[in-house]
């Protein structure tokens, strides 16, 4: 069992750094939600910052790739994502078509490189 869950310390970090800082906003919505205007300016800013943080994480995975993705050349990683995005726009924003195209470019490029 200890191998399945890893160290108790890692689980504590999961609860303190992952579960609580995330869940607190859901529970805040449950407790204090009645008085907040959904279209207020603060929420526009919050959504912009949250979007930009997520964008930063996407960039981090592409620029400083983890594990097996690091074995793919930079230009192929960027090219695959750019191709996926182009197909997404061309198919009237189909996430499915975009993801599949990006993956095909990556696999074909890596296969072609040998």
């Amino acid at each position, binding site marked *: 069992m200890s*191998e*399945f*869950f*890893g160290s108790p310390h*890692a*689980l504590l*970090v*999961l609860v*303190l*750094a*992952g*579960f609580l*800082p*995330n*869940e*607190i*906003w*859901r529970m805040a*919505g*449950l407790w204090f*939600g009645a008085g907040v205007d959904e279209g207020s*300016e603060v*929420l*526009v*800013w*919050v*959504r*912009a*910052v*949250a*979007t*930009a*943080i997520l*964008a*930063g*994480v*996407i*960039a*981090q*995975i592409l*620029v*400083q790739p*983890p*594990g*097996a*993705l690091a074995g793919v050349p930079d230009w192929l*990683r960027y090219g*695959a*994502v750019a191709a*996926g*995005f182009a197909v997404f726009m061309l198919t009237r*924003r189909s*996430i*499915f078509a*975009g*993801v599949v195209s*990006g993956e095909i470019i*990556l*696999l074909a490029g*890596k296969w072609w490189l040998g």
Partner: protein
Amino acid sequence: MPATTQISIWSSVALPPLDSPQWKSPIRAFAWGMSSVASTVLTLVLFATYLGIGALAHDSHFSLGWVLGSTLLVWAGPAQIILISTLGSGATAVQAAIAVTVSAIRLFPMVVSVLPLMKTPKTRRRHLVLATHFIAVTLWVECYRLLPKVPRERRIAFTHGLGCGLVIVCMVATTLGYELAAKLPPLFAAAILLLTPLAFLLSTARNCKQISDVLALVLGLALFPLVSMLHTGVDILISGVTAGSIAYGVHWWRERARA
């Protein structure tokens, strides 16, 4: 909410009419909620995302139990990816917690806007705790689409079913992604890892409603590589808050110019 109407591609799960006696049973409502998971293409996107999260956790040296625990407890893809990639790249728990909590603020307006759909005059706050935990972008979108077809007094049971169904799908995907990253040749393992940035980039781009959202996405992508050269340990936060605030500033300025 125009985005919600175009998402369903196949409507195999036909819910009974609102006045049907079949809705009398909360257990049935739960089951219908659970089977509604099969009626949306978002389930497929979520599956791909969690394949990626499982693979990311494996390649960042977390245990399978740990990442399954994160899917169950955190239940928010962006927060899980931030948690795994910040901790995996050597950030402290405090730095990771700050990045996670800033990314999670967006859950607040989602909860605020969706809970009124489930409330009846008899609903107590504690009845909504589990449904609130399930709220993330997918459930939020699906609630707008599906809850109007469910009698009000069965909506909490229905949401519990929907939430449980999605969690089960994602737990399976997390396990699969983790095991595949361990066993597949590097070529396919790389392809699974690429699912995360692809699926998130495209689903975020799709959710962009205002100019501030589009700018935040573009600036956030562009700014991170620059800020990461500073090696501050909180690069994600600095680039995110800066890009997001610039995007908001442009929105504010345009609104003012229009007024």
